[in-house]
């Protein structure tokens, strides 16, 4: 397949959408390069599915435009947009066989561009091979597992040789194990076929692992766009920092480039702003110290296993929520032990 040539850039310019009194999208701009795999990440209600539906042409933006290869999508019919869309529920045609599902888009073409039936059958076979479901042509959707349905839905979307592939929560309805397998498989498939792909997810791990770039949405606004490394290591906003991975929130006072907690410096903020601020520290950016040596002084509330490492919950004086602290040494502090915490890395945001 030479999908790479077919892939087109997609540019979203100031797209807004209101539903009644509710603003689902408040002016979003995003440019996607041909062949790029971009994740739209955000909590539910952040507008990510609305944006996907605007791009698919299933809904109309109130303001702004969407360009496919430089052409305003408004002038394109759904057919001419050539979007491969995979819904969260898969939406397989339940009364059709797998083969008829996949062939649907090809058979729906006007007669002069419709491939002959023999070629359609051949294409269906090739697509089933591509999604690793050979020989399932005659099955009905109800006879397939969730993961298989997902892959048939993808094959059906790929059959029309889409210029852009849109996936709405592609793994949302699958269990954790199948989800992990399909994630790796989808990444490999994308590398192989090279479609411009946009997928919606609320799972930050999925977005970071799978995407070339991650676009983080919150409350109808784009918070940040960047490579997984960039958004994780350099979150632009407090929301991004808190949404991507785990982070402890510590209210601080900013003064002279230092973040002060309880009047004492806990972290060198760098920027020279003053006033209240928020310090976000990931669990692996704490080190234990002797009690009283730092401004963060507390006792270990409990210690739990957390994958490869152990993690302590430390109750700090003056903080409502306990801090999650990764333990790297073999010797763990005892529950109830008084400890001090040193911050080795973090992100500071001005404002509360």
């Amino acid at each position, binding site marked *: 397949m030479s999908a790479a040539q077919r892939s087109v850039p997609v540019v979203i310019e100031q797209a807004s959408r209101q539903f009644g009194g509710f603003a689902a999208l408040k002016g979003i701009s995003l440019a996607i390069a041909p062949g790029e795999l971009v994740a739209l990440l955000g909590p539910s209600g952040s507008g990510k599915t609305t944006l996907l539906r605007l791009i698919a042409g299933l809904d109309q933006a109130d303001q702004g435009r969407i360009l496919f290869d430089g052409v305003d999508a408004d002038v394109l019919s759904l*057919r001419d947009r050539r979007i491969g869309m995979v819904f969260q529920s898969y939406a397989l045609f*339940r009364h059709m066989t797998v083969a008829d599902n996949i062939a649907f888009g090809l058979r729906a073409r006007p007669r002069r561009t419709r491939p002959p039936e023999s070629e359609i059958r051949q294409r269906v076979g090739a697509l089933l091979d591509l999604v690793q479901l050979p020989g399932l042509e005659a099955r009905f959707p109800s006879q397939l597992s969730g993961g298989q349905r997902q892959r048939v839905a993808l094959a059906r979307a790929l059959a029309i040789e889409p210029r852009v592939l849109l996936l709405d929560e592609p793994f949302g309805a699958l269990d954790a194990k199948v989800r992990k397998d399909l994630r790796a498989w989808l990444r490999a498939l994308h590398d192989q076929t090279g479609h411009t792909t946009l997928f919606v997810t609320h799972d930050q791990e999925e977005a970071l692992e799978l995407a070339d770039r991650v676009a983080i949405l919150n409350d109808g606004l784009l918070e940040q766009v960047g490579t997984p490394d960039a958004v994780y290591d350099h979150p632009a906003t407090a929301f991004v920092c808190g949404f991507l991975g785990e982070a402890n929130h510590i209210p601080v006072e900013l003064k002279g480039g230092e973040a002060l907690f309880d009047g004492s410096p806990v972290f060198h903020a760098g920027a020279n702003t003053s006033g209240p601020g928020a310090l976000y520290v990931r669990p692996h950016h704490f080190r234990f110290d002797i009690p009283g040596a730092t401004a963060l002084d507390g006792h270990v509330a409990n210690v739990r296993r957390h994958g490869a490492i152990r993690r302590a919950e430390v109750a700090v004086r003056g903080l409502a929520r306990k801090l999650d602290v990764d333990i790297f040494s073999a010797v763990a502090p005892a529950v109830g032990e008084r400890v001090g915490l040193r911050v080795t890395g973090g992100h500071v945001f001005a404002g509360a």
Partner: protein
Amino acid sequence: MSDANLAAIEMPEARIARRDGAAARIVLVTLALGFLALFLALPLAIVFIEAFARGWQAYRNGLADPDALAAIWLTLVVAAIAVPVNVVVGIAGAWAIAKHEFRGKSLLVSLVDLPFSVSPVIAGLVFVLLFGAQGYFGPVLASYGVEIIFALPGIVLATLFVTFPFIARELIPHMQALGNAEEETALTLGASGWRTFCMVTLPNIKWSLLYGVLLCNARAMGEFGAVAVVSGKIRGLTTTMPLHVEILYNEYMSVAAFAVASLLALLALVTLAAKSFLEWRHADEIAASRRH
């Protein structure tokens, strides 16, 4: 889920129910069967017994009477118009309600039910008031030579009104459960709206639609009250089968009356049989189209 699995799951419940009291079960079953025998089987049997009370020849004469034939023909014509119109309007209404959000939707849902809650006689009277000789539009229509009341159009209108809910009500919950995703997928795959409807929507709703059509047809042929008001009961011209039965009965021609009535009863039995057959023959498919 296979039938075997289902049975395995339902078994413990069934056992509990059985333990709950054989006496209660026997009383309930007897009550239900007794009720059915008294109010359904017995009347049905009497229709056929009375129809054949004076033998096959008298039965045939009753049906071969020109007025009876005209009534049968009129009934078929009315159903042949009312059912297709209600199929189209019912699908359109159910589509609007199930697949779109708009202001006044709940009002529309209650309006769909209105014919069920209004007495058919009132429905007939409304059309008389609208289109009758002294009605709002009657004189204007009459001046153009259009007859509605005491003619076929009035009978069709009254029948349409009374039978409208059958198809829409069958489709609305089913279409709501199906959602929009399959149609939207078809559209993104490049299918036209019409192709999407024929290839995706219609196959998904065909069993509900067929149920609705069967019920709608049975009612269209059997409707009495609303049709009686608008038809004027002109023998051989505006009497449908139910009206013809009443006229004959009032004239003490009970064999002829029951002969025509037996046809209506037969229609009910055929409808019931067709519905049961469909349920039995396509049980898996029906379940699949509702469940997925």
